[in-house]
């Protein structure tokens, strides 16, 4: 399973799910499902999210069992 810090970082930058979705070109539902770990984004989307949230992609997403940085 793919874990992530999208929700945490979205809160840090005070983005709503819609705002973040608009910035990376996806729907609010998609952001919600990514945050819950129920949808794994493509590399392209993961990179876009990492850019918007100003973090390295491997610090934003990591696989279960791997240590969170």
């Amino acid at each position, binding site marked *: 399973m793919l874990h992530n810090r999208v*929700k*945490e970082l*979205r*809160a*840090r*930058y*005070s*983005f*709503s*799910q*819609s705002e973040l979705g608009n910035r990376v*070109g*996806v*729907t*609010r*539902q*998609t952001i*919600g*499902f*990514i*945050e819950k770990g129920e*949808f794994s*984004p*493509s590399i392209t*989307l993961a990179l876009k999210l990492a850019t918007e949230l100003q973090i390295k992609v491997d610090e934003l997403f990591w696989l279960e069992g791997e240590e969170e940085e």
Partner: protein
Amino acid sequence: MKKDLRVQSPLWNILGIVILVIAAYGVTHSFPIEWSKGKDGAIEIYITSHINWQLISAMLLSLIYLPAYAYKFRQHNKLNPQHKVSMFSIQPPEYLEEDEMMRTVTQRATQKVYTFISFALPLATALFFIPMNRFWYIVIILLIAIIQNLMYYFEIRKYVKEDKEEVSEFS
């Protein structure tokens, strides 16, 4: 998004199919076909006609259903000019293709429907070997269509039902 026509269209399809079932009953019972084998071996076919209330009801319901569905298309296209759908397109309106998750969801739903259809059609064909009123042949096909639409709707609904915006409340 729950109210998006592309999400709701399977329900509209089901409504249309129910009207078709009523129409099928009306037609098959308004124009019953009987045949017999004459003494000379020739097959004689008799088609009688007597309009029944089911046929009239189906026609009246269609007069309400079709303009209402057309209105929903117009309304949807007005509100979503970037995701227009057409009532007369070969492509079903229910495909969601806004982003990669929606495309994945559509793919999952169509895959489930395909799996269902691939066993339901041969099963239906086997049932067609049983002699029965032609109304029931139509019902079997329409029943498959209803199940197909329900499966599609419930699969898509899982991803769009959560309509509450989550603002940044992480602590």
